[in-house]
C-alpha cells in the first residue's frame, strides 16, 4: 500500500511538471506573444476566424501544436525505450535498436535524394510516408532475419545482433544518399536525421495522438507479462505468459510508435534510452509503473529539449536531436556509473 502511494505521488509530480513545461514552451519562442493574445486567440480562432491577428494565428497554428507534438513524441520515444528494455531484458537498449529509426532515416534520405525522380507526391505527407515505409521495411527485415534458420525461434541475442547489422546497412544507405545528393538535399538529410519538431500542425497531432495513446494503452495490458519476463523466458512461460504473442505485440507497438514519431519529427536519440533509466533509479523496474510514467517524463524531457533548441540560436533553430544528445549523454553515463547492472 505504501508503495502504491509513493508511485502515485511520483505520477502526480510528473503531471504537474509536464503541465508547467508545456506552459513554458507555449509562452516562450522566437516571436513574443503576450498572454492576452493567447487568451483572445482561443476565443476568436473558433468564433470569428476572420478577425484573428497574425500573432494569434501563430499561436494557434504553430506554437500550440508544437507543444503538444513535443509531449506526444517524447512520450512515444520513452515508452518505446521502456518496452524494448523490458523485452530485451537489457538496460542499454533503445527503440531504434531493432532497425526502426535507421529504416525511417533511410526512407527519408531516399525521399530527399531521389524524390524528384519518382512521380509520387502527396505534399507534406510524402516524407512521413517514405519514412514510415522505411521503418516498417527495416523492422520486418530484422525480424525475419532473426528467426534463426534451425529452431524458428526468436532469440533475443540474435535479434539484437541482426538489429545492429541492419542498422549499419540502412545507415550506410543514408550515407549513400547524402553522398549522391546535391548540397541542399544533403543538408536536408542531415537536418532531418538530427530531429526537428517544427512540422507540427493539428493534423499531425491527430495522427500521432492516435498512435501514442493507442500503443500505450495496449502496452499497459502487457506490463505484467513484461515484469514476468524479468525472470527469463522459461519462467515467464511457466507463469502463463504467451511468449511469442508478447514479443510480436511489443515489437509491433514499438514499430508503430517509433515509425510515426520518426516520420514527423526525424531521428531523436537518447530520450528512449535515459527515461526508463531515470525512473528505474527512483522506483524499481515494475513496468506497470514505468510505462505510464515514462510517457510523462519523456514528454517533459523533450519539451525542455525543444525549448532549448528553439531558444539557443534564436531566431534560428537547432535540431532538437542535438540537444537531446548533449543532455542525454552525461545523464546516461552518470546513471550507468551509479547503478549496478547485470548485462
Amino acid at each position: 500500500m505504501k508503495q502504491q502511494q509513493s508511485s502515485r505521488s511520483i505520477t502526480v509530480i510528473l503531471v504537474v511538471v509536464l503541465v508547467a513545461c508545456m506552459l513554458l514552451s507555449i509562452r516562450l519562442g522566437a516571436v513574443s506573444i503576450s498572454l492576452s493574445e493567447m487568451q483572445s486567440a482561443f476565443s476568436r480562432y473558433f468564433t470569428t476566424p476572420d478577425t484573428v491577428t497574425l500573432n494569434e494565428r501563430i499561436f494557434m497554428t504553430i506554437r500550440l501544436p508544437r507543444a503538444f507534438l513535443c509531449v506526444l513524441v517524447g512520450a512515444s520515444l520513452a515508452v518505446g525505450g521502456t518496452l524494448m528494455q523490458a523485452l530485451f531484458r537489457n538496460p542499454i537498449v533503445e527503440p531504434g535498436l531493432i532497425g526502426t529509426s535507421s529504416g525511417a532515416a533511410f526512407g527519408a534520405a531516399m525521399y530527399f535524394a531521389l524524390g524528384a525522380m519518382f512521380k509520387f507526391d502527396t505534399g507534406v505527407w510524402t516524407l512521413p510516408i517514405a519514412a514510415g515505409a522505411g521503418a516498417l521495411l527495416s523492422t520486418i527485415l530484422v525480424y525475419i532475419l532473426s528467426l534463426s534458420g534451425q529452431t524458428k525461434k526468436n532469440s533475443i541475442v540474435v535479434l539484437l545482433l541482426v538489429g545492429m547489422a541492419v542498422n549499419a546497412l540502412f545507415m550506410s544507405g543514408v550515407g549513400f544518399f547524402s553522398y549522391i545528393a546535391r548540397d541542399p538535399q544533403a543538408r536536408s538529410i542531415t537536418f532531418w536525421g538530427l530531429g526537428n519538431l517544427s512540422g507540427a500542425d493539428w493534423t499531425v497531432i491527430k495522427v500521432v495522438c492516435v498512435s501514442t495513446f493507442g500503443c500505450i494503452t495496449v502496452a499497459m495490458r502487457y506490463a505484467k507479462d513484461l515484469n514476468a519476463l524479468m525472470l527469463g523466458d522459461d519462467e515467464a512461460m511457466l507463469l502463463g505468459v504467451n511468449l511469442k504473442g508478447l514479443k510480436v505485440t511489443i515489437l509491433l507497438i514499438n514499430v508503430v510508435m517509433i515509425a510515426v514519431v520518426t516520420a514527423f519529427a526525424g531521428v531523436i536519440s537518447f530520450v528512449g534510452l535515459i527515461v526508463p533509466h531515470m525512473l528505474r533509479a527512483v522506483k524499481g523496474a515494475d513496468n506497470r509503473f514505468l510505462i505510464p510514467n515514462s510517457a510523462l517524463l519523456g514528454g517533459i524531457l523533450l519539451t525542455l529539449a525543444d525549448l532549448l533548441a528553439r531558444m539557443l540560436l534564436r531566431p534560428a533553430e537547432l535540431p532538437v536531436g542535438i540537444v537531446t544528445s548533449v543532455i542525454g549523454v552525461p545523464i546516461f553515463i552518470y546513471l550507468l556509473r551509479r547503478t549496478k547492472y547485470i548485462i
Partner: protein
Amino acid sequence: MKHLIGIFIASSLLLSCGRFGKKDEKQEQSERIVCISKQYNEIIYALGAEEDIVAADISSTYPPQIKELPTVGYHRALSTEGILAAKPTLILHDNNIGPEHVVQQITALKIPTKVFGKYNGDIRGTDSLIREMGAYFHKERAADSLCAILDKDMEQVLEKAKQYGDTQRVLVIHYGRASNVYLIMTAKSTAARMLAWAGGRMAVDGARGMKQMSPEVIAASDPDVILLTDFGYDRLGSLEKVKALPGIAGTKAATNNRIYRVEEHDLVYMGPRTGKVAARLQKLLHDETAAK
C-alpha cells in the same frame, strides 16, 4: 558516433556563427522584408534598396554589410517562428527554401511572399531580373545604371575573349574536400558560363552543376588552371598546401603555380558584378602578370 557528430556540429555552429543573435536595429520600421536568396540580396544592396531588409539567410554573404543583419538560418532548414520573429511584412525567396512544412506554414499564416521572375542564366536574364527588382523597389534609375555597367563590363570581356579563344581548361573546386574527394563545379554550372565568357572551359563535365570526384579523375583532367573557393582555400591556408593535395599535385595548374582563390558568392549566381567577376577570371586565365 552519430551523437558525437551532432555535438560537434552544434558546438561549431555556436562558436562559428557570430551571425546568430545579431541585434535587429530596424525595430521601428513599418516595411519589413526578410530576403532568403543570395542573388536577390546582392541585387537589393546594389540597387540601394536595402533599407527595408530586416533579416537574411545565412548563405547570403555579399555585400559584407549584410552580415550585420539578423539571420534566419540556412535556407533549406528554416524555422517558421524564426522567420516570423523578424515580423516580416514580406518574404522574398527564389523557390529554393525548405523544409517543405515551413513553406506550408508560412502560406497558411498568409504572410505575403514574393518570387521574382525566373530568367535565363545569362546577362540578358540578369538584366531583366535587375530591372524587375528595380521596378519593384522604385529604383528604376539605379537598375538602369547597374544594367548599363554590367552590359559594358561584359562587352569588354567578350571583346577580349575573342583574342584568347577557350584554350584554357579550368577546374573549379567548390567548398573543399572530404577525405580526398572533391566537389567540382561542372560544365553545367553557372561558373562554367562565366568562365566561357572569360575565355576558358571546364575541365570536367557532369549531369548537374556539382559533382563529387575522386583524385584520379582530377589528375586525369589535368587542368591548366585550378580555382578553389574561399572556404576550402582558407582552410588549407597556402598555395603550397593546395598544390600538395592528391590529384592536384602533378597537374599543369600545380606545376605552373596557376591555382587561385575565388569567392564562392562570385561564382554560384549572376548579379550586377558578374561582368567584373568575368573580367577578373579573364585576367587569372590569360594575363599571367596580373594573376600574380
